[in-house]
């Protein structure tokens, strides 16, 4: 079994990661699990960026895009977890189906 490792191999890995993340975002009830699914989706996008960067003539702009995505993911995780902590103080649970009030 000799499959040459090319652009398509990396794209397929990223598709699988993306679909797993999407499944987690849609089906899990815990807000932190939804955040983890989001991280998986962002990482799938990053793999695509880097793979296209390598196979498209080693264009470094893909790397720069990934750096910005990582920065945004860090900011998003910090703010989202702060919000999650606040939700937990008000509701004593994190079931996102039942969180439906902006003000108590």
């Amino acid at each position, binding site marked *: 079994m000799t499959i040459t490792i090319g652009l398509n191999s990396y794209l397929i890995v990223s598709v699988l990661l993306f679909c*797993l993340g999407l499944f987690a975002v849609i*089906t899990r009830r815990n807000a932190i699990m939804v955040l983890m699914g989001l991280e998986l989706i962002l*990482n799938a996008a990053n793999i695509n960026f880097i793979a296209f960067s390598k196979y498209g003539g080693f264009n470094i702009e893909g*790397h720069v895009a990934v750096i910005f995505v990582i920065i945004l993911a860090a900011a998003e*995780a910090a*703010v989202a*977890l702060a919000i999650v902590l606040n939700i937990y103080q008000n509701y004593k649970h994190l079931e996102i189906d039942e969180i439906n009030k902006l003000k108590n």
Partner: protein
Amino acid sequence: MDIISIAFWVLTAVTIGSAAIVVFAKNIMYSAFSLLFTFFGIAGLYVLLNADFIAVTQIMIYVGGILVLIIFGVMLTSKITQIEFKGGLTGKMQLGITGFATLILAFTLITVFLNTNWFMKGNPNEVALSTVNDIGQMLLTQYLIQFEVASVLLLVAIVGASLIARRK
């Protein structure tokens, strides 16, 4: 099989396997910890793709920052670490429909990828020794404004997060 293929298959197995554990584990702590292996596997894939700086950044920010934050979040919020998918008949139906739709999406995307004639340039086997120099040049010339905006955004996010999470 050469060493690159073996490394690719091992890293893919680690990444996808632990991502599956993240998604399907019953205990949220297991999910948080197997996210660690997913991030390491992805960093390995970056190394295979000649992205040395991005690989180190991935380990430092995702593993050292975001994952620690997520584990803190899990520990601060869940008394009962047992979490479940949506229960009952509607829950099972929703689970089935979502799984089916996700699989369809995956197959569609893979078919599209395999049948597209991508724009390829150059020989992927000959690359620069290090990307750090190029990335630095790029960040301080062409992407300078975005770079500064990102730093301001990080500052705002830090202040905002600590303001929101403060105990009243």
